């Protein structure tokens, strides 16, 4: 009988496999975390402020106060994720020491390094990272991310960027799948991604890790749309706790994510949810303030 090994790639990607078909919800306190767990969230993202409030308040957004993260870790039995700044490996070390189950190296916070992301192979705890296209996804996986999420545009309640990003990823996977082996070297150069991962994707016609959708999902129909477009599950940030009836909306989004191909069920759960969060048109956000541009 061999000894038990922790922190293996299979154990890290395996937790993401268990989250599939589920909804991960942003929460800023214990009360919200319990509402999310009770609504059927598969995990919560512990934050100091949801993206809509980060966007509104401006300034530098950092890792949450450990008190908030610890309180949420202690309050729910489902996995807890937390965000560190891009490239801020000390924030990541702190989050690992707090016992979080997944670290999101996130563009929602202000980047700490404009050239390098965290070397995620250094950690026992798994990482999820954002991407807008296949090259970005494979660069993050090359750095050790064991789950990715398309970025969308956080804190907007506008699904258009999330759709753009999942379509980019799936279109590029289709393109790679049609290439001859000798073309994959040039494809890796064009995608600016590790050759071995490019070859794997071309042969398997899918990403090597689980891919969720994030950034702009506000309704059950939005969640089902992202699932039909090929995402494995959804993150809902501001969309739940910036709406009129968070508990009811959270449950409805959970049901729509499971039954994403059943229009009758999606119609039923979409009734009388109260007010959705007020959305923002992407063209009204100056390019420099678009969070999706962060990360490289």
């Amino acid at each position, binding site marked *: *009988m061999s000894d038990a090994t922790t922190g293996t790639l299979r154990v890290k990607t*395996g937790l993401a496999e*268990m989250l*599939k*078909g589920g909804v991960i919800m942003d929460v800023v306190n214990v009360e919200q975390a319990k509402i999310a767990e*009770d609504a*059927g969230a598969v995990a919560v993202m512990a934050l100091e402020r949801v993206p809509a409030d980060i966007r509104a308040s401006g300034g530098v957004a950092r890792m949450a106060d450990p008190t908030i993260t610890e309180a949420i870790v202690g309050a729910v*039995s489902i996995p807890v994720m937390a965000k560190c700044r891009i490239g801020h490996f000390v924030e990541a070390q702190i989050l690992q020491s707090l016992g979080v*189950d997944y670290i999101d190296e996130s563009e929602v916070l202000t980047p700490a390094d404009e050239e390098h992301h965290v070397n995620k192979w250094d950690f026992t705890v798994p990482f999820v990272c954002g991407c807008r296209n296949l090259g970005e996804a494979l660069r993050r996986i090359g750095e050790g991310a064991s789950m990715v999420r398309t970025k969308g545009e956080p804190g907007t309640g506008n699904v258009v960027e999330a759709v753009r990003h999942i379509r980019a990823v799936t279109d590029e996977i289709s393109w790679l799948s049609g290439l001859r082996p000798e073309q994959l070297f040039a494809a890796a150069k064009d995608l600016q991604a590790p050759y071995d991962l490019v070859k794997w994707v071309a042969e398997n016609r899918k990403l090597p890790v689980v891919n969720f959708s994030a950034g702009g999902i506000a309704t059950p129909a939005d969640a089902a749309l992202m699932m039909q477009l090929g995402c494995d599950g959804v993150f809902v940030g501001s969309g739940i706790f910036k709406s009129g009836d968070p508990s009811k909306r959270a449950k409805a989004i959970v049901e729509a994510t*499971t039954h994403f191909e059943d229009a009758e069920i999606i119609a039923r759960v979409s009734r009388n949810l109260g007010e959705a969060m007020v959305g923002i048109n992407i063209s009204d956000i100056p390019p420099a303030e678009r969070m999706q541009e962060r990360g490289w």
Partner: protein
Amino acid sequence: MKVGVLALQGAFREHIVSLEALGVTALAVRLPEQLDGCDGLVIPGGESTAIGKLMETYGFYEAVARRHEEGMAIWGTCAGAILLARSVLDALPGQRTLGLMDIAVRRNAYGRQSESFEVGLDVSGLSGGPYTGVFIRAPWIESVGEGVEALARHAGRIVAAREGDLMATTFHPELTGDPRIHRLFVEQVVGSPRA
């Protein structure tokens, strides 16, 4: 033979792939009426609270119990083992289970994700050497009733068990590509006489 895989949330796709590789007709089950005609059911890994709430909303507790009564075999992996158990330690207040199998399961028994691990297991009835158990925020089986056979242990705790046409594993055979435990379920547990 037709085996349903409960597809409310979690790693159901991997179970379907593993079952189809054995030549079994595997079906993603999202509504209770899809259980009709299933000889076996796999309840996959995922979040037991999330799967349990969706089971409640869609009437699965009654439907699964009724189909089991009619002879449908059931295998629960990880969250699925929790949902099969008669009692759950460290459960969420009011967390409901099927309560079909005479085992007591402790949720998140090994700790948080940093403590998730893989290890070689000796599984009773499997030839061909140790089976790699992938344990992810896994439960363990704290105690079993009479008539329940422990199939595997790790560090003194039961991690796989069988009671007639019910089987529970607290690890994830669907993540390893090793077909032996799926084969055990299909060939020996499905269609076995009621204990």
